């Protein structure tokens, strides 16, 4: 594991991966959009409103996936003091927040015609809203300290404590009565969804995953550069105070 904690190695690896991840993201999102908006059939009950699913469901998966990634990176940072793990957790947060926000907005746009309401305070919707607040809290704490290391440590603890929300989201549709339908893709006995609908769903999910990797690389690079700038400035201040 420690082999990957080296920023120089990360930068080398990032350079190799970035063209592939951004290429895969662009291609699968383009194909996904084509299938989602044009080539897939309308639902026999929901009509064309079902097309919202192809962005809503992958966004929800990403919202939860990014949080798990952030919590794992945070745990690695707290336990092994990996400098890179902190950076990756910090880089993942805005992506996860964006997908969680999109999940809520597209869900609302789907809920209005299907359920007759933009919003309901039920278990699935509320726990997803809490996920968004956890992301926002994580980002706020991370930037609230003058010493970035202290901010990252406090934020990492929040990420781990908030991880309890993930199983609550996942099983909220089974534990409580809710407007939201139960899982139909990731379930025992295989997906209960037609292949013509599964194809755009999986293409969009793949595209979002590749998008996350590309953003992770870009933000990771920025964080590593910012860290080096801090070290140089620190050395300059140190040298200046010694010179006087």
């Amino acid at each position: 594991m420690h082999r990957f904690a080296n920023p120089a190695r990360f930068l080398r690896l990032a350079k190799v991966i970035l063209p592939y991840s951004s290429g895969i993201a662009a291609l699968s999102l383009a194909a996904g959009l084509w299938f989602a908006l044009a080539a897939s059939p309308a639902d026999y009950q929901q009509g064309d409103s079902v097309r919202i699913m192809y962005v809503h469901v992958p966004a929800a998966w990403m919202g939860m996936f990014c949080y798990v990634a952030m919590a794992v990176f945070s745990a690695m940072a707290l336990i092994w003091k990996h400098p890179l793990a902190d950076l990756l957790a910090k880089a993942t947060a805005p992506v996860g927040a964006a997908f969680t926000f999109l999940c809520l907005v597209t869900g609302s746009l789907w809920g209005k015609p299907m359920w007759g309401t933009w919003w309901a305070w039920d278990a699935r919707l509320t726990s997803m809203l809490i996920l968004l607040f956890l992301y926002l809290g994580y980002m706020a704490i991370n930037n609230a300290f003058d010493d970035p290391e202290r901010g990252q440590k406090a934020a990492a603890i929040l990420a781990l404590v908030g991880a309890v929300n993930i199983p609550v989201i996942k099983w909220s549709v089974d534990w409580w009565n809710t407007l939201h339908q139960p899982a139909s893709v990731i379930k025992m006995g295989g997906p209960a969804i037609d292949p013509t609908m599964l194809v755009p769903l999986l293409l969009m999910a793949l595209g979002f995953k590749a998008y996350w990797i590309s953003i992770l690389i870009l933000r990771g690079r920025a964080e590593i550069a910012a860290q080096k700038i801090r070290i140089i400035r620190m050395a300059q201040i140190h040298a200046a105070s010694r010179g006087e």
Partner: protein
Amino acid sequence: MESVSTLVQMGGYGGYVWPAYAISVVVLALVLVASLQGARKTEAELEQLQAIRRANRAAAPPPQGAVVLESKE
């Protein structure tokens, strides 16, 4: 291939489907642009700092471990 108007109308759900996709594209594009600019800006600043350091070292090699910040002229 359907006509453009059926695609726009989405069987009466166009007012919900299109905003859902539009906002997704906008949000993801914003995050991408912000991340690209962040990486470019910070890496350019680092490059500049490192160039100054290299120039300083070349101009006045520091005697015995002293760090030279800027030349006296």
